[in-house]
């Protein structure tokens, strides 16, 4: 809330369509290719999607001063080699059953499901 965030008043931004800002979206990941995972075959991993736009404070619950300053630079025409990006900032774990050299194992895999998104 310290930072000056230019308000881009744009009809596009206000629509809830494909232009909706950085947020969590459902995404199913197929685990067939990970041959050591027995159960489940797929799961809902989610993804963070959408542009990072001003004003962040009213749209995105998680962002840093660093992000705001980068976006300010960009808005003033300074080119950034890497623009701020909508990414998971919090994950949850998932219990899976897998096969190992010792047999069957029930395991908690960390950071499997995206739970919250932010602009970084």
């Amino acid at each position: 809330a310290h930072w000056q965030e230019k308000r881009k008043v744009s009809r596009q931004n206000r629509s809830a369509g494909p232009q909706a800002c950085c947020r969590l979206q459902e995404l199913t990941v197929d685990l067939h290719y990970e041959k050591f995972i027995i159960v489940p075959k797929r799961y809902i991993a989610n993804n963070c999607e959408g542009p990072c736009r001003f004003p962040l404070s009213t749209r995105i619950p998680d962002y840093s001063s660093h992000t705001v300053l980068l976006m300010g630079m960009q808005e003033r025409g300074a080119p950034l080699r890497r623009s701020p990006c909508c990414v998971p900032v919090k994950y949850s774990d998932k219990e899976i059953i897998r096969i190992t050299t010792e047999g069957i194992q029930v395991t908690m895999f960390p950071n499997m499901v995206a739970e919250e998104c932010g602009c970084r």
Partner: protein
Amino acid sequence: LSWNRSCVFYEHPHNLQGSMRHRGHVLGGTESSTILCNSSQCCFGIWNQSHGRLQAVMQGCWGSDRDGCDSPACKTSPIHTMGAILQRCLCHSDLCNANVSWLG
């Protein structure tokens, strides 16, 4: 019984690390048990397929309804891994994981 899903509960005594016991309340004896699920309405089963025969490896409650637990019956799909064929299913009716309804 109640609103909780009931599944067959079994865990092979060898070559198994960890347990799925915490996903419900286990009732019943030493040979074959029933578990009342606490996390979902979904059962799972894993069998070892060898020489045309199926041997139960693990059966119990799965932790989520959202991992592809769409079928009421246990329709397995095989996984060829580490020299074995494992048949596994998720299903969502009471005791649906007792047997394989459809071998994949």
